[in-house]
């Protein structure tokens, strides 16, 4: 089995790049590969534990009815999936980017690193994909 590193930069709720990246991680885990995800810049807010669901006043839907998905839940699900499949999923945030945004309160399982860690992940990987913002 291979090791794949994926870099993400987009912040949550803004770009189709985010669900596409999540789909790639899901597919890689399903195939039994180890995956490193390095979140840079705005993507460090993907695992922010303070994300909250909201009702939809326009459609008169409650929080429960709306069931708005937050990316922190997708990350939790991916970490659980990796555990179930017994593959390694590292979800690492750029620490400086986290501090800049004040999103230190992350869900369990997300780690903190630096671009040096990103470089190490890439060096040890069979395949690398960086999904930039532009």
């Amino acid at each position, binding site marked *: 089995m291979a090791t794949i590193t994926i870099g993400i930069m987009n912040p949550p709720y803004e770009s189709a790049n985010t669900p596409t990246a999540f789909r*790639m991680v899901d*597919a*890689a885990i399903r195939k039994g590969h180890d995956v490193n995800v390095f979140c840079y810049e705005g993507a460090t807010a993907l695992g922010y534990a303070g994300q909250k669901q909201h009702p939809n006043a326009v459609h008169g839907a409650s929080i429960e009815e709306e069931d708005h998905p937050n990316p922190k839940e997708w990350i939790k699900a991916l970490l659980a999936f990796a555990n179930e499949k017994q593959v390694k999923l590292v979800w690492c945030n750029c620490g400086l980017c986290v501090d800049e945004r004040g999103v230190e309160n992350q869900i369990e399982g997300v780690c903190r690193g630096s671009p040096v860690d990103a470089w190490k992940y890439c060096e040890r990987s069979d395949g690398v994909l960086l999904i930039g913002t532009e």
Partner: protein
Amino acid sequence: MSKYLLIQSKSPWESGDVAQFYALARELGKAGGEVTFFLVQNGVMSARTGAKDAAFDQLLGENVRLLADDFSLRERAIERGTLKPGVKPGAIDEVVDLLAAGAKALWH
């Protein structure tokens, strides 16, 4: 032979760089590379029969494997039968397989 994976996430109507990304794929193919060009998100819009994108059409028939993400096609109600000849629907698994096989990957 080097393997390349180029992923196009934008349509040519939202970014002026898209045509250059097509050209890069074409040139890599001409140079003997094994190139997969994966259309995803709005990138699949050029693959519709009738879509006017001359730069994309230059890729058709070249030494480039053209895939359109099946999920992105479904999201946009684009049927498999309406794709330009030479473009096939593909799952995101294709991207993972190429990354696992060590393909050099670029996202645009």
